[in-house]
């Protein structure tokens, strides 16, 4: 039996956790991204929030949530971008425990997938995109 979990908590925890990993590099939710003034920064966006629904009339008969958040790293220096991606991998990949600080929640596993790196000529920013799946027991 698992009740529906609150994505607001996910967002708070992701923001908290990423800031703690990459400090002092600024971390923004996607809509805040500020490429004009920052030489290096991170954005994230949350997707695939879904608890499988099981049979019966009980609305709380659901499985665990395995949402994915994408981390986008932007930096004017390629080496900085790769270094930041490595910092995130070392800290987050395979992590299990409290996620998002004291007001966060327990996760069974964080699984980071490096998608690709790129360069945006218009912005003059190197970019690295990572997907992180978190398993949240309910």
């Amino acid at each position, binding site marked *: 039996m*698992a009740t529906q979990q609150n994505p607001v908590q996910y967002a708070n925890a992701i923001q908290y956790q990423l800031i703690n990993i990459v400090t002092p590099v600024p971390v923004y939710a996607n809509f805040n991204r500020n490429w004009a003034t920052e030489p290096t920064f991170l954005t994230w966006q949350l997707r695939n929030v879904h608890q*499988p629904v099981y*049979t*019966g*009339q*009980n609305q709380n008969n659901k*499985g*665990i949530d395995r949402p994915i958040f994408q981390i986008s790293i932007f930096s004017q220096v390629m080496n900085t971008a790769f270094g930041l991606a490595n910092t995130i991998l070392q800290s987050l990949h395979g992590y299990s425990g409290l996620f998002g600080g004291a007001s966060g929640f327990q996760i069974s*596993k964080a699984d980071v997938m490096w998608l690709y790196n790129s360069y945006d000529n218009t912005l003059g920013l190197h970019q690295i995109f990572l997907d992180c799946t978190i*398993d949240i027991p309910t």
Partner: protein
Amino acid sequence: MPLPSKILPGFSAAMYAQPGASPTALTAAQLTTLASITAIAISGNLLNVEAVPAFGQDDAVASFTVAGSRQSDKIPSQAAPTSLTVTAAWNPSDTVITQVRTDAYSGITERTYIISATDGTGTIYYAFNGRVGEFKIDAQPGAEAKAVFTIHPRGNLYGWTNTA
């Protein structure tokens, strides 16, 4: 509230288990009595299964050679009730699941199980008595841990009722 009179989605089925460490399973007469069934089919006795498996009766047939006939003859013979292998999300604190686990280690605890299906108005119940054989935990990464158990129904102990 009548018998549901439409094709039901499988999703509408729910499964209940009679509570208690040493339950007295319902008699064949009680299994076809709505009041006896609805006393068990309450939310506190709900098994949080992922899906309700196929239930009912297995096939059994005997073939006979008929002299002088081009075709042989097939006669249904004594059929076993269908065993139900159920997958439930594993919550170690869920009292119904832990009771099923205890039953599995015992092997002789007989209790009444009920499957209900509803169209939102009427509900139909299939009740049967059974014992638990298999019980195992599937803790593969990448999804919730699952408790998989098999209920073997006793013969001739079943009943259909509805909220008529």
